[in-house]
């Protein structure tokens, strides 16, 4: 550590696009309190102005700067260099569950398309004549955890169903299960998303490895508090004898829809 409290550190940053690329070393000076995103900005300023980095608030609130730091999915703006060994190069790579655009920037637009497929809030009729609702703080608190989500998509990145199996066409991923949980448990909601979750959103593909929970920068207990309760609801629905009978006779909701009967 130099007298000024700074020292030179090497960063190996992935450079390239969908056709290929490689890790490239950049040396830059780091000082107290710096985060990985600060170092990337210094590299842009000093060595590589065209280094593609997506970021916005630099305060852990917008969820734009997701990447993999030494192999760990992280927000680069909340990755303090003092928590990372600096005696060897710090590796920064793009998320792997999404198509690469360039350098550290990936195409996450799939997430926005998927979200549209989840049925929106359908509130119950207002409780008061002035058109407002009464809600208990405890009911609000129950979904607050899910509503903290900043849509950084790190949970999607680390989920093996998306990352390894690339089942983007049949599984909405942990982020959208958290979104569905926030709606299902919303104090005012009257919509039923259970069939969709089972048939279209692929909740069954999640086998509860909890990798998503581990990487969530907002510390949302994704698996235990969102996905497992949703799975229970879906199962309860499936094993309801009356619903089961309807299904047996008429086929599932999805099959009926495909036959144009619904």
């Amino acid at each position: 550590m130099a007298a000024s409290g700074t020292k030179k550190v090497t960063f190996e940053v992935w450079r390239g696009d969908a056709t290929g690329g490689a890790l490239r070393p950049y040396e830059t000076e780091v000082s107290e309190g710096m985060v990985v995103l600060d170092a990337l900005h210094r590299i842009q300023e000093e060595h590589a102005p065209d280094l593609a980095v997506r970021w916005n608030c630099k305060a852990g609130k917008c969820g734009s700067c997701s990447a993999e730091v030494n192999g760990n999915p992280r927000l680069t703006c909340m990755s303090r260099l003092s928590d990372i060994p600096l005696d060897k190069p710090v590796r920064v790579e793009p998320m792997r569950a999404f198509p690469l655009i360039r350098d550290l920037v990936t195409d996450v637009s799939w997430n926005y398309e998927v979200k549209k497929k989840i049925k929106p809030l359908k509130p119950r009729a207002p409780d008061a004549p002035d058109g407002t609702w009464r809600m208990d703080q405890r009911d609000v608190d129950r979904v607050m955890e899910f509503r903290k989500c900043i849509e950084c998509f790190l949970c999607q990145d680390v989920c093996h169903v998306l990352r390894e199996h690339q089942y983007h066409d049949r599984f909405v991923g942990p982020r959208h299960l958290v979104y569905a949980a926030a709606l299902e448990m919303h104090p005012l909601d009257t919509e039923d998303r259970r069939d969709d979750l089972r048939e279209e959103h692929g909740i069954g593909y999640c086998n509860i490895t909890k990798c998503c929970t581990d990487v969530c920068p907002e510390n949302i207990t994704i698996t235990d508090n969102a996905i497992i309760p949703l799975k229970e609801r879906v199962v309860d629905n499936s094993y309801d004898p009356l619903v089961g009978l309807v299904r047996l006779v008429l086929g599932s909701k999805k099959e009926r829809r495909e036959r144009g009967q619904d």
Partner: protein
Amino acid sequence: MADHQTHEFDVLVIGAGGAGLRAAVEAAAAGARVGVVCKSLLGKAHTVMAEGGVAAALSNVDERDSWRVHFADTMRGGQYLNNWRMAEIHAQEAPDRVRELEAWGALFDRTPDGRILQRNFGGHAYPRLAHVGDRTGLEMIRTLQDHGIHTGMDVHMEVTVTRLLKDGDRVVGAFAYDREKGRFRVFKAGAVILATGGVGRAYKINSNSWEYTGDGHTLAYDAGAELQDMEFLQFHPTGMVWPPSVRGILVTEGVRGEGGVLRNSEGRRFLFDSIPDAYKDQTADSEEEGWSYCQGDKAARRPPELLTRDHVARMILKEVAEGRGSPHGGVFLDIAWIKERIPNGEEHIKRKLPGMHHQFKELADLDITQEPMEVGPTTHYMMGGIRVDADSQMSTVPGLFAAGECGTGLHGANRLGGNSLSDLLVFGQRAGQFAAEFAKKNGLGRVSEDDVKRSGQAALAPFEGGGPGQTENAFQIQAALQDMMQEKVGIIRSPELIKEALEEIAELRHRADAVVVEGNREYNPGWHTALDLHNLLTVSEGIARAALAREESRGAHTRQDFTEKDPEWGGVNLIMVKGKDGAMQVRREPTTPLRPDLKAIIEEIG
């Protein structure tokens, strides 16, 4: 050159923060075909960073509150330079705008009887801010986003507009590029709404996200629209000061609303020593009374920590200048002390201020339930901006509307905390409504191929710029501008320094013209920053020229050589417009006299 995709809408919204999304929702509800263009991904705009709450006189916590009191508070906070019609509309309509968010899924903290809870904030006479912990902005933008995606709006993410396109006097579209490939887009529209936010990235220490480069201000100005009140830039009193890499990140005023106090290095609550006359009657005269107020005692008056932001920021600077600051050049903000007063204080702090607890723990290794924070002023919010009609939000150019931070009028010389989130709802809704009407009435205009061609050439100029030996990149010029504005057009202003600033802005423009961009058009931040420089330089010049012209101290504008308010200036707004020769012109415009019934409200409430 003319290679571009063309899109056609009735209403084009530029910017997808709270104002843009609220406008888009409204225009879509009116039956318009709506396009939304945003520089970032959807839901990432600066609104996510708003913490404390949204101001609306719901009167859920204190029945003495009403739109009249909210109106009077807003006018007093703005030192009566506000557009009073906007302040009236805002105070009257904010409660409905908040309630309708709840119908779209927003969840606010609750009162014991299940209604929306409201908290205290600086300059508001009663608890008025609907909130959810300290992440109100995220709740609002996510609600608007999740509601908006089912209204049929067509969202173009990571697309940046570089020019507005006109047909005669009227704005009829916009020219843009997409970040991913650098391809050009032409948007034709019956009406265009600017909702691009602020200008904070012109300063080194700021609380703003990278997008805040004055785009809407500059697009409007270049299209011939008038800007107003550019000297009024809010410095939030409490930004983080340590470690250096997080300097400027916001520490919500909610900390003080929950009972947090400001102390100097001697442990003294210095704000008790300098309470402005206009607020003497409303401010506590003992620490005990201040604490009672934060606990909801209706007979008690506000602690001085909840005075307006301009005042608190100046007093912090004074403590630091006089040698009573904290080790890293700020003062101490202490919320941990409330543990002495309430049971389970630690849990209470974590529940009320979870974001702040997380932010300090992660970025500064500091537990706010145990230790005081170090805080100092940070560039936060632009009160000035595009001059609009109070009712319709149309600018001085037909077909061009503005809402949210890039518009102006509501806040006057100083904005009250919580009034920006209500501003973007109230005037976002109005802009959407009136833009849809305008588009319906006037249809699409004609976009000139020549304009499109010239816009494309200008956007590509940075790839061709630079003489022999030119090595400067856009990041270095932005950093130079930020350092200079911080030093020369900061909180306390002198004419000598502002004049130097204007000269340096002119030099920086030359340097910006000569920037060479490396690489190609695909997701190239060097190129994007080069294009943003024009906007940053334009708003910087606007701030400097207005700051030089206003020879008084009022609200967020403080002059070293004119330290007092001047009644004559109290009736004047400064208007800026691009002259025929391309130079920025500044003119004084007298304010419109208050309507008698509104005047009576101010006289009654004070």
